[in-house]
């Protein structure tokens, strides 16, 4: 097993967020997703791009890609919370669940905008370049040959 890094977090029992800590504690057997994932996703979406900027060693294009990914994940969390608490209409009216790649006028009347996935449009300029680098992996040419 690879070496592990310990990260502990303690708060006062009087903290207003004690419910959150109890909810995420291993004693809670009814979490929606694996506990570790829930904690990591939340931290990553909020702070990972800033951590990368702080650590140095990332190009501007890399940092933008990480920021864009984090924004995308936060947007997904908005949709999840809206669905969990029945706020789709309210947030939809504020344009927070809308699909930014469509204008209202080009939406088909049959489209259910509140249940379809809605994420921010990727910025085309350097976005596409980054996308290609993410998607083209070292074994692709070999795979194309193997499955011809």
């Amino acid at each position, binding site marked *: 097993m690879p070496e592990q890094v310990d990260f502990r977090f303690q708060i006062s029992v009087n903290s207003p967020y004690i419910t959150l800590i109890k909810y995420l504690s291993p004693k809670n057997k009814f979490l929606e997703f694996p506990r570790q994932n829930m904690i990591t996703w939340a931290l990553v979406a909020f702070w990972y791009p800033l951590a990368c900027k702080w650590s140095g060693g990332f190009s501007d294009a890399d940092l933008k890609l990480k920021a864009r990914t984090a924004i995308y994940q936060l947007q997904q969390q908005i949709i999840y919370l809206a*669905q969990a608490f029945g706020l789709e209409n309210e947030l939809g009216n504020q344009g927070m669940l809308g699909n930014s790649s469509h204008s209202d006028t080009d939406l088909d009347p*049959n489209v259910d905008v509140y249940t379809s*996935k809605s994420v921010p449009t*990727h910025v085309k300029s350097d976005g596409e370049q980054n*996308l290609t680098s993410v*998607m083209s992996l070292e*074994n692709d040419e070999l*795979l194309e040959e193997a499955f011809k």
Partner: protein
Amino acid sequence: MADLTIAFDPGSSLSKIFYTLKSFHPELLLMEPEVAQVPKASLVAYESSCVGSPAAENSAWVEYKGQYRAVGFLAQDRFYADLKLSEPKFELALYKTLALVGALAQKNSLSNGASIRLGVLLPYGEYEDRKLFEQLVTEALAGFRFRGVERSFELESFLCRPEGFGLISRGRAPGSSLKERKIAVVMIGYRNISLLIMDRGMISQGVTEDLGFNKLVGCVQRLVSGQKALKLAQAISKAGSKISTKALAHLVRVQDPGLRDTELSQIRSAVATAREEYWISLFSWLRSRIPSDVDEMIFAGGTAHYLSRELNSLLPHTEKIWCNELEAQINRNFLADVSRNGLEFRLTDNYGLFYYLCGTSERMTTHA
């Protein structure tokens, strides 16, 4: 980039579709797996009885060459279609493809003449039919009707790959070349199991067998009466390896409170027996086909995860890959859908194909 890029996994328990329009914007669409042949009059009656505007994917029916098919939720809910597990997947996949393209075109206001890049996963046993499928789907997409409206699209490119391909291409950690490894990809789905052996970048073996999760479900159905297959499958899967009675409780049919515990206990016992029987068949099948010198085994499919404890004990010295990173990406990006549908583990192969499809678009041969 085509107007619409689609990666389609025509699964027997769920049609799974990742797609994007020209502006890269991945979306997930799920459709029930059923396809039903329906008389035109019934569809006309259905349309005239529709209240409001149902979502396109939930009211999908297509007309092609004088044949009418309801697909997805409409077929399941209104026309009581069965899963047609004995029919070739690619034959049903033709109607499913027309329905999903029609639904996506309606949802996204795509006009006729739009270009489509389509990627499809088929079981290895039907992979040989890919040329035929390509021919059928090219012709059909050029002229069909979706909910009575004439539709016509250009298939800009077509990529058919065997199940498991998305995992080989995007499920492994970067930096490990396929040229140096012998890999077994084991896909266990609802209908069948596919095994693909790749030896230093070459496919050395591919085989598909009707030994999917439905065998386990069928065994339970023989032991307890009156249970519907898909509902039972979902409950068994949720009950997990410890066979939690809580997850099985809604299967109990008797009303008498005194008998409810007895029936629940019978169901649990049937699941335990079926699980053991199923694993014995699966183990024997896998051991006789996977060479003992494989370097890594990649597992995918809901059934594989259901049996993860047992599968991890196969060939103890071989590296086991469960595509956790790919799965975490799906969970992060499609959190609401995954949570609502209990889809963990079932989308990874197609998600891998989707990214492969987008990433290799420049190099792909343009469809003639």
